[in-house]
């Protein structure tokens, strides 16, 4: 890329600290998105988002159509659930998601001979996405459509999007930032989406911008994706949307870090980007908004990448939500001999799991299968307080102290060192020369703090 230049934005294009893990995107970056054939059965957990679970509105043995509402989010922070296939509802089952949540899921046995994925992908990747007729949509309508379509953040956190686009008098939003950084190694769904469906992203961005009356819309992409940048630049040339190219660095895709990089604003501790007038959404989410508003399709499918050295044929797939991970892996040629760990999401923040029945949820951005070479490390040694973790922490914390406070059960000390500011990006653990599982300890520490405050 040559010397990095970052012009036109207040920020420096980067944030303090952070790490540079090998991005390993070559596994799947050049693989065009394939539509995954409709599976025999889907399993839809009732809670796929941050917030409250939704309540089932279908009964056992009921027939449902593609896109039909099967779960309704009653609480404000919860999202609706739609069937990705046409089929028959079966008895509910319990599933344990990779993040440890144990909950009920709606099971739907799909009818034969259908391929809703093909239709949806065609709509998504079409060239006819409008950029000029956005003003006919009223912001309230857009919000409502987003709510009804059950859209959540597809970057991984799965925060219900309608909450973000809800106008709030106390927090004036003037900037919409669209996060296409995809800083996690291995993952490529956002990249492929930007390559293959930029129209949906641009339209969705304009719609979302209208919904929150944003004065400025910025699409942020890391500089290791030149082709996507090129494509987005071309297509956004006629619109108000600007493309910001930020430095490749982990965790650039974290919202606070991205706001810092692009706008040079500090999101307050414990606050959201909205506290500094910024709304942030993932490119996938934005495309889903476009689909919901323009093509009137609820969120039932998403792009994920199945990648890593442990996968025979890494691929990017357009899959129905609720399909089991085992099927995806089989579709990609199965695991290789040296596969060691299956991770839902990227290798830095994703959750590993062992149950191949686990369904893909709205927040699953990829399945990464790591090899022994990737994950095997020496045994943990003592912390020598070398301070590498301090240099890596994008939140400017002292991870070693937090971890030791957790290990020796001293929640008061952990609070003093601001344990709750940690968003578990894993940078500290990545650099730790002693192989201490800092993030895990910090996570445990947070629980101790919660228990102490109870």
């Amino acid at each position, binding site marked *: 890329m040559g010397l990095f230049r970052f012009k036109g934005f207040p920020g420096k294009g980067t944030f303090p600290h952070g790490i540079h893990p090998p991005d390993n995107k070559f596994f799947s970056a050049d693989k065009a998105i394939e539509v995954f054939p409709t599976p025999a059965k889907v399993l839809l957990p009732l809670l796929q988002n941050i917030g409250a679970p939704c309540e089932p509105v279908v009964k056992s043995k009921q027939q449902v159509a593609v896109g039909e509402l099967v779960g309704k989010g009653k609480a404000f922070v919860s999202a609706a659930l739609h069937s990705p296939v046409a089929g028959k509802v079966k008895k509910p089952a319990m599933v344990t998601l990779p993040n440890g949540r144990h909950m009920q899921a709606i099971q739907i046995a799909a009818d034969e001979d259908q391929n809703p994925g093909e239709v949806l992908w065609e709509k998504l990747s079409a060239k006819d996405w409008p950029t000029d007729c956005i003003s006919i949509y009223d912001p309230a309508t857009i919000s409502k459509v987003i709510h009804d379509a059950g859209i959540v953040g597809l970057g991984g956190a799965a925060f219900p999007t309608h909450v973000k686009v809800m106008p709030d008098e106390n927090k004036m939003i003037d900037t919409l930032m669209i996060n296409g950084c995809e800083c996690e190694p291995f993952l490529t769904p956002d990249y492929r989406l930007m390559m293959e469906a930029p129209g949906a992203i641009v339209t969705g961005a304009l719609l979302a911008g209208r919904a929150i009356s944003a004065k400025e819309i910025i699409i942020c992409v890391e500089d290791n994706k030149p082709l996507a940048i090129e494509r987005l630049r071309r297509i956004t040339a006629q619109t108000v949307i600007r493309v910001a190219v930020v430095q490749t660095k982990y965790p650039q895709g974290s919202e606070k870090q991205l706001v810092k990089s692009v706008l040079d604003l500090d999101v307050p501790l414990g606050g959201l980007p909205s506290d500094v007038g910024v709304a942030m959404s993932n490119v996938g989410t934005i495309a889903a908004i476009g689909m919901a508003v323009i093509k009137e399709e609820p969120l039932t499918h998403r792009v994920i990448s199945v990648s890593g050295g442990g996968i025979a044929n890494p691929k990017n797939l357009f899959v129905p939500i609720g399909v089991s991970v085992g099927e995806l892996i089989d579709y990609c040629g199965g695991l290789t001999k040296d*596969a060691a760990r299956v991770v839902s999401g990227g290798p830095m923040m994703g959750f590993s799991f062992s149950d191949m029945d686990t369904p893909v949820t709205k927040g699953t951005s990829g399945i990464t299968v790591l090899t022994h070479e990737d994950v095997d490390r020496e045994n943990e040694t003592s912390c020598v307080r070398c301070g590498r973790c301090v240099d890596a922490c994008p939140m400017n914390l002292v991870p*070693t102290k937090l971890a030791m406070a957790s290990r020796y059960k001293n929640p008061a000390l952990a609070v003093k060192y601001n344990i709750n500011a940690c968003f578990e990006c894993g940078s500290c653990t990545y650099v730790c020369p002693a192989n201490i599982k800092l993030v895990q300890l910090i996570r445990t520490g947070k629980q101790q703090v919660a228990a102490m405050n109870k």
Partner: protein
Amino acid sequence: MSEKNEISGQGLGSDIAIHVAPSPHLSDQTFTTRRMMTDVLIGLLPLVVMSVYVFRMFAVTQLVICVLACMASEFVFVKMRSKPVTLNDFSAVVTGVILALSLPGTAPWYVGVLASVIAIGIGKVIFGGLGMNIFNPAMVGRAFVMIAFASAMGASAYINADGGVDAMSMATPLTAFKQSGVATSILDLFVGVTNGSLGETSAFACLLGGGYLLYRRTASWEIPAGILSTVIVLSAWADMSGGFGGGFVLHQLFGGALLFGTFFIATDPVSSPVTPKGKWIFGIGAGALIMVIRLFSGYPEGVMFAVLLMNAMTPLINRWTIPKPTGVA
């Protein structure tokens, strides 16, 4: 269960054991604790070479005694705690080499042995081993023998005209200066053909090894920067008020254990603060103490005491310099 096997298909044969672990799943394997210790040893190499060149057999004997004694005591003490012996992390070797280099070549064998036992026993294992030691083990050991065998470690102990080594027929530069007002030539100090503790004589070797550590980022640059700048400022001030005409600063800088201590002892990550700001405070404090002790106290050299004192302050410094997380005004 049968249903499950059907779905997961061919990929999960019995020969592939999928395990689970917390995130993150990647780690930087190029940099490990052992690698850090090896780096320190590489950094110490110029000093070892120089000390062997200047002091001959004295240096060799002292190095062998200290390294062996350190490893033996590490082995014994860790065994006493019935914990796995961790000699392979090289930390005991590093302690041994630093300890040996901080002793005068003429020190009798029991000085090295006792210093090693104290360094590993009281300086390290009693606090829980590597990573837990509040104080720099080598300096605890050295301070102990320094006070215990003052005559074997004191200024005059360095002089041993019978040793047949040129450097050992003169007083150590700082002692000569403090007690008689005699300054050693800067060039001698820089090259290292003066008397003193084994590792401290050659400013050049210290700079070389220290530079390597800084380049490898095994030692953080903030502490040396803090110490050296403070020493320069304070000695310049003393220089001006004493009317020495400038030579004093370089003499203070290159004489004694300043560079050795700055690069290899004060930068010991375990016993220094973790945050950059804390490291600056540590460095400035150590530099100030070094100069106070050198200028005013009964000892010609203050690096060891300064490092120990700042080690003691480190928990407090850490406490005062908890960094503000991003987003806190």
